[in-house]
């Protein structure tokens, strides 16, 4: 689609922020806590940071919170009453400062929650979110969006994508969707007409390190490879990679009782935990860490493209940054591509 390209002055971003607040939007943006950048509800523009490569956690929590009530029950003299959640309570959210690799992840999550059964809880949350993307002018060793089909100025998934035109420069605003136009309409005056801008000039160069289709093809015959054991020796078996991943959607369903009432919640889970697949009988289909690591890679680079026509990886590099054992997914994917079966 041909996007509407406008220009917004650097100083006007704060005004835009204020205009959104005036329109009763909840703004969630990257903020600093304990030396880490995370998405936080921001009440003031000053809380938002622009100096970051990537947030520690992805923005998936907006539509797929770490813990979310899916129903509430209570027992009384007449019997049992069960209530679902009320979508009316979900606030209108503007997600500020999303990197393109995160924005594209929302689509991949959507694919999981909408193939076959439609998860309306997820969809309703998502429908209330407007994504303001910011393209990347900086990258680090962990970044590899270009290897999985993305790029630092990718518009996919954003409602408006801002690209800063040079250090301390103004921003190009690509208005991509109706939700985006709605944001513009709240502060029309701030969005000037853009002249001819070559946005690519201002984007960071992220080299292509592997070909994801090649990896996908390789994986079809790679299941029994010894490489999995080699790669996963370092793995400590925690769930950090899955929890920071923008596309990891595996979850658990738990009941939390409090006397005669309680709730059923959906909460994150990870295929890296040994308990994930453990049967009550004691049988575990994925008994050792190498099988679980294999599942993670296979699911993202083979099963998901086969089943859902999307890759389960956006190249954001969060899992590698968060890994306490420094398991670098990029290195592992390259070595899979290069391995002789």
């Amino acid at each position: 689609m041909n996007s509407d390209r406008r220009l917004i002055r650097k100083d006007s971003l704060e005004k835009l922020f204020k205009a959104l607040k005036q329109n009763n939007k909840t703004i969630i943006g990257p903020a600093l806590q304990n030396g880490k950048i995370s998405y936080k509800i921001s009440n003031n523009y000053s809380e938002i940071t622009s100096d970051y490569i990537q947030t520690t956690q992805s923005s998936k929590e907006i539509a797929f919170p770490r813990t979310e009530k899916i129903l509430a029950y209570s027992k009384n003299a007449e019997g049992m009453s069960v209530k679902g959640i009320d979508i009316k309570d979900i606030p209108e959210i503007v997600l500020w400062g999303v990197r393109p690799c995160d924005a594209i992840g929302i689509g991949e999550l959507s694919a999981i929650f909408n193939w076959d059964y439609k998860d309306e809880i997820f969809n309703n949350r998502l429908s209330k979110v407007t994504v303001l993307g910011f393209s990347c002018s900086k990258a680090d060793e962990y970044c590899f969006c270009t290897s999985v089909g993305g790029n630092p100025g990718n518009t996919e998934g954003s409602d408006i994508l801002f690209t800063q035109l040079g250090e301390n420069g103004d921003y190009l605003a690509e208005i991509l969707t109706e939700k985006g136009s709605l944001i513009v309409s709240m502060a029309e005056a701030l969005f000037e007409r853009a002249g001819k801008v070559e946005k690519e000039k201002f984007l960071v160069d992220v080299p292509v390190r592997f070909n994801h289709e090649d990896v996908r093809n390789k994986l079809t015959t790679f299941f029994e490879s010894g490489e999995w054991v080699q790669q996963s020796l370092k793995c400590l078996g925690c769930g950090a990679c899955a929890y920071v991943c923008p596309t990891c959607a595996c979850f658990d369903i738990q009941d939390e009782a409090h006397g005669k009432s309680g709730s059923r919640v959906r909460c994150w889970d990870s295929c890296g935990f040994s308990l994930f697949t453990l049967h009550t009988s004691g049988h575990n289909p994925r008994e050792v860490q190498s099988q679980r690591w294999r599942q993670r890679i296979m699911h993202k680079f083979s099963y998901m493209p086969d089943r859902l026509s999307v890759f389960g990886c956006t190249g954001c590099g969060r899992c590698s940054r968060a890994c306490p054992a420094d398991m670098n997914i990029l290195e592992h994917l390259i070595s899979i591509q290069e391995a002789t079966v």
Partner: protein
Amino acid sequence: MADFEPRIVAFVCNWCTYAGADLTGTSRIKYASNVRIVRFPCTGRIDYMLLIEAFNEGADGIIVSGCHPNDCHYTSGNFHARRRWIMFRSLCDFMGIDIRRIKFSWVSAAEGAKWADIVNKTVTEIRALGPYDEYKKVAKTPEKEVIHG
């Protein structure tokens, strides 16, 4: 809150304090009725998670009580328990859990009057402190609709 009646859970050992509490009753000593007694074989069996669980379920105060040192039915269960209490109490204090609400005591099978006294004092103290709203608020978090980071 003048009419606040604290809910107190007492975790006691079978051999001394439970028998002691029994004696309080048979001696017809009257004491506050706010306490619910949970009997254990030994103080050594009283896991710290049980105390946390009591707060989760709405206790305003906790009493943990067993045999006096050297009187343990199993020789040393209370000595082991004491070590754990020292550490657990310190951790609770460090995390801001109100340790005035967790009382530890030795009450023998002969000390019916002491038991009544401990319960009464605890109830008076907790009544003055008021309900443990700080903890109850957190215990309610599972009922929130959504939890973000």
